[in-house]
């Protein structure tokens, strides 16, 4: 199995994400520069966080025009897994590989803190490691993370089970207090209809080692486990 981590100019969570795959999950993983236009040798792709093109114009919009994006679209057509984390999520939205938009946080500030998330859908290659409705902890760190879709689209996301994670308060309620950025319906992660592309604002790679988390949890790595495990099953078939 070989995982690609795409690097755009300004990506800055590439090394962190690489470390989780190589050191913790012991999976083959390679950096791929955004000027590449072929991803056929890979089994999964991660778009890590950062500030591609310095968030100029709008987070993710310039990166969405990189050569690698066409290759990514072809990759997605083959139903291979793609995860976009933070700026990666913004790029997937701008590339129209995922629905919706990511707007400036409702408090108009960058927000870096640990949040509680509820697994809304575990029938998915990215979250099947978790029990349905389980509460997990990860940090967020973003300026433009307020997920937005209109009501009609929101109904569609609900119907198709595309809402994967929601921000909740410490006891699991989808409340205003639990929503750190003003996202519609507290949405923290969505997938495409086919279920092979996931975008999330929280950083699972920062929640993969007990020593880095305030409460020793390692929920973030569960997301990557799910993907790797699902792929292994698939590759054996």
């Amino acid at each position, binding site marked *: 199995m070989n995982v690609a981590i795409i690097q755009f100019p*300004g990506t*800055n*969570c590439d090394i962190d994400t690489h470390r989780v795959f190589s050191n913790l999950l012991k999976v083959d993983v390679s950096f791929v520069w955004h000027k590449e236009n072929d991803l056929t040798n890979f089994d999964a792709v991660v778009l890590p966080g950062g*500030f591609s*093109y*310095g968030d100029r114009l709008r987070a993710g919009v310039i990166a969405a025009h990189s050569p690698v994006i066409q290759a990514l679209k072809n990759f997605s057509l083959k139903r291979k897994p793609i995860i976009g984390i933070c700026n990666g999520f913004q790029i997937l939205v701008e590339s129209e590989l995922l629905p919706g938009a990511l707007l400036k946080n409702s408090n108009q*500030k*960058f927000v870096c803190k640990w949040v509680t998330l509820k697994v809304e859908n575990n029938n998915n290659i990215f979250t099947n490691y978790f029990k349905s409705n389980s509460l997990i902890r990860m940090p967020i760190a973003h300026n433009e993370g307020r997920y937005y879709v209109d009501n009609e689209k929101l109904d569609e996301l609900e119907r198709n089970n595309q809402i994967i994670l929601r921000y909740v308060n410490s006891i699991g309620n989808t409340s205003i207090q639990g929503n750190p950025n003003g996202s519609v319906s507290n949405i923290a992660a969505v997938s495409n209809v086919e279920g092979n592309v996931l975008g999330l604002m929280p*950083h699972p790679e920062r929640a993969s080692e007990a020593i*880095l988390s305030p409460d020793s949890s390692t929920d973030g790595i569960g997301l990557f486990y799910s993907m790797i495990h699902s792929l292994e099953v698939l590759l054996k078939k």
Partner: protein
Amino acid sequence: MSKLESLNLSLTNSELEYIETYLNRQANFVELSMMDAQWSEHCSYKSSKSLLTLLPTKGKRVLLGPGYEAGVLDVDNGQILTLHIESHNHPSAIDPYGGAATGVGGVLRDILAIGTRPLAILDSLRFGKLDNPNNKWLLRNVVRGIADYGNCVGIPTVGGEVAFDDCFETNCLVDVVCVGIGKRKNLVFSEAKNPGDVLILLGGKTGRDGIHGSSFASKGLDNVDSDRSAVQIPDPFTKKLIIEATLDALSTGFISGLKDLGGGGLACALSEVSDKGNTGVEVDLNRILLRESNMDASEVLISESQERMLFIVKNGHEIEISNAFAKYDLPYSIIGKVTNTKRVVVKHNGNVIADLPTDLIANAPLLNWPKTKPLYLDSDSSSKPDLPSDIKETILRVLSSPTLASKSWIFKQYDHEVGTNTVVKPGESGASVLRISKEKFIAISVDGNPSHCFLDPYNGAAGVVAESMRNIISVGAEPIAMLDHLQFGNPSNPEVFWTFNETIKAISDFCSYADLPCVGGKVSFYNENVKTNKPIKPTPVISVVGLIKGSNNIRTRKINELYPLIILIGETFDELGGSEYYSIMNCSGSVPKLNFEIEKNTQKLVHDAIKVGLLGAVNDCSKGGMMNSLSQMCMAGNVGVTVDMSKILTSCKRWDDILFSESHSRFIATIKSENYTNLLNISRNYNISFSVIGSVGGDELRILNNDDLIFSSDVNYLSDFVYSSISKIMDDGI
């Protein structure tokens, strides 16, 4: 108007005379502009250099001390740590966003210039009080500037301090510490050693921003609007690319020297690399990529446009280096070469327009200012507050004062997690802990205390070093080196220079005693309140770095019921002068004295006790006294405590003195009852006393005086109160 003033230069007439005598001819305008930048206080340290030699700079881990881009420490197994501190006070005072952002950018470049990757940033910020809208504007935009820059380049901002005092009303202080990590074999210096090597300028194009930036930092802030163009323009995205391109270029092995372009721009970079390398340089200004047309030669030479690095490349290997730059689509140009002439020669349109000996430019004549003890230090102005009748109101008022209150409004705007190495995060202790390899960690803190330093420059400054060390000890680390940043008023004021002198003496004395080498620092003069024409309080800011081997030795201030007994190590004295409590009460008294021996032994006791696993949570006890330290521990652990004040070792009689005294050499820690005797034995070896003052448990922070409950507060309520203190001020209206 003198000739120099009419040329808008800050050189003095005697300096001009010195230059022209040395050259044996008149210097032209381009040459004088170069000299003006390099001989500014900011670049030349002409007022402080001779005193700074007092600081101890040698130590078993020190590979490179002050005088280079960054201090370098050996942390074993071929790994090195690099450290640097910079301030951007004047730029931040007039353009808080751009000034603070480029302050971060500058210190990152220094860490990069020595061949290491920036690992983390800390800031020490000082403003006037937040009841003034201008100070709120400064705080809001300084924080946003640091956040936007650090977050974008992907270097975590992991800690720091923020304090408020009227003396910083128009002259805020913005200090940035950066720590970097790399391999010893990849170290590179800011030297041009080999004639024939090629000079390549990488990065941002040169524009008119930051013209006279270093000269402007070397005088008072008198004309805010016309000085605004002296502030540089930040570009963190380009910086991120420069970091990656530089590290890629260094890995080719064809770089023989590297220098960042900071204060004084190209003029300073060229003279420093040739002076350090004992060579010369020749550059052609027509080769420099410009952002705007019709810039004159002197502007090109002294522009402080950001995001530029000067590479000294082995002759014949320009291609390998330019390939590394091309990957990131960064602009670069070959601007000249290294010579053996010991002169900096600048050509423009085929003509030599400047030709100066390197040792002249690089060595400004030193100044020795007169000094006199300030009069106010000899007048006794001590006054004690009336004993407050409402204890609860008083305690909450002190704990929620912006200087002591939680800084979460600030650090939530900083990405403190990127890099996935931040182990002890902002708010969890007085120091931050970062992982540098599987079982090796560094601790870093930054501290200042101008209130103490104003009333007693010697004890104040030594105390700041001690406090910063205690923060390092508290997380379980062994202090290995420090940086100092000395911020004062105009050095030609004899009272200011006296306090500067005392400060350096104090830092040198205590660092020598504690065996803590200084590996770098910075001096910033001319910090004055424009409205009152008074200098700022003496503000030495100290950053200490420590090393931790083994994750089981890491401690925070988070208490829990596994270690139920609370102890206070050290004695509490009636030393409230300069305390946060007295500044709220508008009173004055004697400043905490630092007893070097007791301080060192107390630190050793705590360090040893952590190593053998006796201590659970540990917190330094200084600003805001034991009350603030205790409340920080409750809030971090989200659990209550009951403490009996009468158990505290003290000669004080009043509750407010006991709770708010800022005496040095104290820690609060938690232990298991079965370990009491073990700890007592260690403490006897060091001749240090401690007492059990209470226990962990419940939902309230409760203070007893014998059997009387004098204070209680629900910990959640207290957290909300203390956490929202700054956000209430900043997010409500203007």
